Each structure stands twice: as structure tokens, then as C-alpha cells.
């Protein structure tokens, strides 16, 4: 190694150390002078395909945040959000969490939206005893991700069981097929659905997958169609591919029941692509629009975003998280261990998601609702 190189290295190390502390140092001072704020880290996919759920969920989070702050904040302090783009992958989830934990010194991170980024962030937050609470990560692996890791969206393990029971009992299916995307969320649902459907005594006649880059599903459709299933369970990772898949299924002439998971029955998706989706049945975590908190959220979101909430269940989760955290911090202070204990005690909380209870693993216990697209409108079956 020569001298210039060494000099450069030194220079960069100096720049790094000089740059890094500036902002937090200022903020700490401000905190003392002003009434101050409680910082909440937020990591969500704000770019890439997954921004399709990251952005609406972020908006719901902001609505709750503004509500709390306009009502006088928490203990006279503001709740201040710091947003990071975790891009739905573990590498960026890890980097985002590490910045939030070590630079912004947050004690609480809301996120991630995807399971991969959440699992990438968990080792960082766990080591520093920072709360990581996700509105929407559903991978069964998150159940065991750590003591400080929570979520208000139920694990795929539950949703897959509900879907298979619906197919077996309500749709009376003797033969079911599954078409799923090779992503964490979709594979989680696929595995549980298959297992449980067979356990119930029926048969899986086709099990096809596609990769996130694919746009042509006709081969899968042809292979599935020839087995003539009574129900096809579709599990895309994001709405874009799901709609294409339905379109290609219908073009092929398949006319029996299609069943899907929550990502595909977002309200704006039904609105924009309703004609293609006619008859589709979707299962999502229960969301009662008549529940006053939920109704308020829907009204506000619709007004601000000029669209109906695409993923009301997850968005309600993000909304409730803010209120839960505000309550916890108000009662016990900005202390992650106490907030953790508070969260484990949550039982029958009246939230926008409905009655919310958090179990010993930090997972919620929740109900599901089943809806069908009729005349381009979502209609609740139950």
C-alpha cells in the first residue's frame, strides 16, 4: 500500500467521522430546548415494485401521526417520524435499521412492510433492544425473530388455513390448484394452503410457480387448466402480476372459482381492474369499515390520496401501531423494554383493525373476512 492510498483512506475516515454525528447532535440539543419529540423510525419499501404497498401504508401511518400530534402529542411532545427506504430486501432493511438505530437513536421502528426487510433488520434492532413492529410482514419466520419484534398482521400460517378451509367447505372443491410467485410471502401462503387442503381430505391437482420477473403465465395456465380444478388459489407478491395472471386465466377460458390473498384485492386495484377480476374471491384480515376508527381512517385517506385505501387491513395496522406506541410512551416513557412489556399485554384493543390481541410471540390474534368482486365492487361475503 502506498502513501497516497493511505492518505485517501485517512481522509475518508475523517470525513466519515466528521459528517456522521452532526445531525443527531443538533437534534439532541433541539430536544432539550424545545418541548421536543419522540422519534419513531419507519422503514418501508418506498421504491421498487413493493412501493405499491409501502407508500399507502406509509400514508396511513402519517395520518395517525398527524392525529396524535394535533391532539397535543404524547406528554406534550411530538411524535416525529424518520423514514427510510428498505426496498423490500434484507440488505437494505439491515442498512435502514442500522441507520435508524445508531444515528437517529430511535427506540422504536415501525416496519418493515415486507418480510425480507423485516428479517434483515431484526438482528440489528434485537441487539440494541429496539422495538421493531411491522404492520404487514407475514412470513412465519418472523414469529421467532426476536423478543422485541412484533407485528399486527397475522402470519401466513393463519391466512393459508382460512383460504384452504374456504375452498374445501364453502366452495366445495374436490380438486384445487395453486399458482404462486416465488417470493417469501407467496410461498408461505402456498405451503400452508397445500398442506391444510390435503389434510382436509381433498386433492391438489396442480402446483405451479412463477418468478417475480415473469409477465407471461400462459404455460402455467395451460398446465393448470388441463387438470380441471374446482378452485385455483392465486398467490402473487404484488398486484401487478396478479392481475395479469387473472387476465390470462380468463382468456384461456377457465371459468371456475378463483381464490386469492389480500394483496390482490386492494380497493383501488378492484376499481381500476374490476372487469378482469369479476367473481374473484379474496381473503384478507378482517377489516370492518363500520368500525368508527376504520371509517375515520378510510375517509381521511380517501380525501388525502384521492383513492380508496388499497390495503385497508395493513393500513389499519399501521394506523393502530401509532396509537399503541403513543399510549405506551405516554404511560411508560420512551423506554423500549417498557414498550415491549406494554405490547405483550395488548388484549382486545379497539383499533382500526378491530379487536387486537398480541400473543406471546408478538404476533396478533385476528379474524379474517372473505369478499368477492361483483360488478367491479368488493362485496363482503363474511
Amino acid at each position, binding site marked *: 500500500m502506498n502513501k497516497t492510498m493511505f492518505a485517501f483512506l485517512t481522509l475518508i475516515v475523517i470525513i466519515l467521522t466528521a459528517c456522521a454525528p452532526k445531525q443527531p447532535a443538533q437534534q439532541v440539543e433541539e430536544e432539550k430546548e424545545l418541548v421536543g419529540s419522540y422519534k419513531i423510525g419507519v422503514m418501508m419499501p418506498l421504491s421498487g415494485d413493493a412501493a405499491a404497498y409501502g407508500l399507502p401504508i406509509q400514508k396511513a401511518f402519517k395520518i395517525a401521526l398527524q392525529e396524535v400530534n394535533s391532539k397535543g402529542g404524547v406528554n406534550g411532545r411530538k411524535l416525529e417520524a424518520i423514514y427510510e427506504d428498505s426496498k423490500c430486501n434484507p440488505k437494505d432493511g439491515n442498512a435502514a435499521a442500522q441507520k435508524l438505530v445508531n444515528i437517529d437513536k430511535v427506540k422504536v421502528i415501525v416496519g418493515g412492510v415486507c418480510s425480507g426487510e423485516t428479517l434483515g433488520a431484526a438482528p440489528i434492532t434485537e441487539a440494541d433492544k429496539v422495538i421493531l413492529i411491522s404492520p404487514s410482514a407475514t412470513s412465519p419466520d418472523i414469529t421467532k425473530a426476536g423478543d422485541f419484534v412484533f407485528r399486527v398482521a397475522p402470519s401466513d400460517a393463519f391466512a393459508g388455513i382460512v383460504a384452504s378451509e374456504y375452498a374445501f367447505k364453502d366452495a366445495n372443491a374436490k380438486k384445487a390448484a395453486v399458482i404462486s410467485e416465488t417470493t417469501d410471502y407467496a410461498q408461505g401462503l402456498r405451503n400452508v394452503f397445500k398442506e391444510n387442503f390435503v389434510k382436509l381430505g381433498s386433492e391438489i391437482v396442480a402446483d405451479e410457480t412463477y*418468478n417475480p*420477473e415473469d409477465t407471461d403465465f400462459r404455460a402455467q395456465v395451460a398446465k393448470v387448466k388441463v387438470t380441471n380444478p374446482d378452485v385455483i388459489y392465486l398467490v402473487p407478491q404484488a398486484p401487478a402480476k396478479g392481475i395479469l395472471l387473472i387476465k390470462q386465466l380468463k382468456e384461456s377460458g377457465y371459468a371456475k372459482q378463483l381464490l386469492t390473498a389480500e394483496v390482490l384485492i386492494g380497493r383501488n386495484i378492484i376499481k381500476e381492474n374490476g*372487469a378482469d377480476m369479476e367473481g374473484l374471491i379474496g381473503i384478507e384480515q378482517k377489516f370492518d369499515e363500520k368500525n368508527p376508527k376504520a371509517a375515520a381512517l378510510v375517509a381521511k385517506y380517501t380525501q388525502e390520496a384521492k383513492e380508496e385505501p388499497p390495503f385497508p387491513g395493513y393500513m389499519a395496522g399501521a394506523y393502530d401501531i401509532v396509537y399503541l406506541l403513543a399510549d405506551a410512551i405516554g404511560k411508560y416513557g420512551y423506554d423500549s423494554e417498557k414498550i415491549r412489556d406494554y405490547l405483550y399485554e395488548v388484549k382486545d384493543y379497539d383499533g382500526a383493525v378491530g379487536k387486537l390481541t398480541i400473543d406471546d410471540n408478538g404476533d396478533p390474534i385476528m379474524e379474517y373476512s372473505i369478499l368477492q368482486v361483483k360488478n367491479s365492487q368488493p362485496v363482503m361475503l363474511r
Partner: protein
Amino acid sequence: MPSLSILPQLIVNGLIAGSIYALAASGFSLAYYVIRFLHFAQGAAIAIAAYALFTLSNQVGLNGILSILLTISIAVAATLLMNYAVYTPLRKRKATGVILLISSLAILTFTASLIRALFGPSTKTLLLSKHNKSFDFGLFTITSIQLAIIISAVLLFLLLWILMRKTRLGKAMRALSDNKEVAQVVGINPEKIYTYTFIIAGIFAGISGILIGLEQNLYPRMSVIIIVKGFISSVVGGINSVPGAIIGGLFIGLVENLGIWFLPSGYKDAISFSILLLFLLLRPRGILGRGMRDDT
């Protein structure tokens, strides 16, 4: 065990998919042939065209023909802008093919982000696709848009063949492709021909954007996804033969769809890339290629 009754449908599916790849490959292949760099940003131009059509027909409400013509002009303008803003300065700096490749990947990312910022991340459906009809022939089904895609691919093949073999522009392009220095000596102005090349690539992008948009809907990352298959098709068809790109597209489409007959469908991409590997190793000039240049 795979059932034989789906074979006709799989072949038709292969033709449809192949024609889509061919559309994406056409402009990409032309740019490679004339300018000798991997113009991945062709995917960006295709996505821009699709979103332009969305704006013009869904949002502004122009009629079909007018919005289609405007869409093609926008695609041409976007392609020329890429050339003047990024590629021309790089060529002046005598940047190598790899630098141009990376800059075109950068344009691809840039466009996807820009589209996401302007139109949001959710999927859009073109209103024009409402006129789409499905025809059932018993053994297979096909829609009117899919028929249009297959016909367009065939027409593009003929058009490219005439362009390269029968026109003065085509001859100048071939001369440039064979040897830039010699071409310059005989009075061909490379930059001028490059501009024409990008105009033609832009027109192809416009047509592909419209058809692919109608068939597969619109989403910000469509640019990236489309051009990867366009790239494979170009190489397999013969990167030294512009019409070869169309043949390559059809070939890849068919092999992928027939391959999935036996293999789990998740391996579809692996199939096409394995074919790419095999071709590069065993027949790098591709199906229609005429041998390789020495200096690449």
C-alpha cells in the same frame, strides 16, 4: 405426466410470448448491430411509450389513432433524448461498450423511478384493451391483441429485412457495422446514421410499448423485465443479424413454453438463459448470424 392435449395451446403461447420478445428485441438488436453496444434502455423507451399511451388515451381522452401516433412520436423523442444526453457525450469520450452498457442500465433504473414518481407504483390498464376479444378454436384460444402482436412481429421481420438489404440507409448501417473507419473514409457520417438508427429504434419502441402495454398492462418495472428477454432473443437469433432478433424471440418463446411442459414452471427464466449460454458457447453467431467481427 404432461398431457398432450395442451400441446397446441403451448405452441400458440410460445408464439405469443416469442412475438413479444421479438418486438422488444428488434430495436435493441438494431442498435447493437449499428452502434455496437447493448442498448438496454430500449426497455425504458418501451415503458415510456406505454405510459404515454396511458396518459393520452385514458387521461386526456384522445381517440385511438391520434393517441397511437403521438405515442410513437414520444417514444422517438425519448430515444433521441437518451442518445443526445447520455450516449453522444460518452461516444465523444470514446467510452467503451461496457461503459455504454452500464449507462444504459442506469437509464433503465432512472426511467422506472421516474415513472413510479409520476404515475405511482400500481398497475394501470389501458382503456383501449377493452376492445380485446378472445377467440376459441377448440384446441387453443387467442385474443385479438395477441394476434396483432404475432402479425406485427412478422411484419417487423419483413420490414427489417428490407431495411437492411434493400435501402441505402441499410447499406450505410452495414458498412458502419463492418468497419467504422472504412465507412467514414467512403463518406458515411456515423453520428448521422446513429441518429437514424435511434429514430427507427424509437418507432419500434413505440409500437412495442403500445402492444405490450395492451397485452401485459403497465407497471413501473416493465422496462427492465421486457428488455432482458429482448436481449436473449437478439443474441440467440444472431446479434449480427437484425432480422435474426425476431427469429430469436420466437425461438425462445417456443422453447420456454414447451420446456415448462416438463419442468416446474419456476425454471422458465433458467431455460431461456441456459439456451443463451449454449448458443454463446456453441454457436455464438446465433441462428441467423453470419460470423463474428474480430475486434469485439
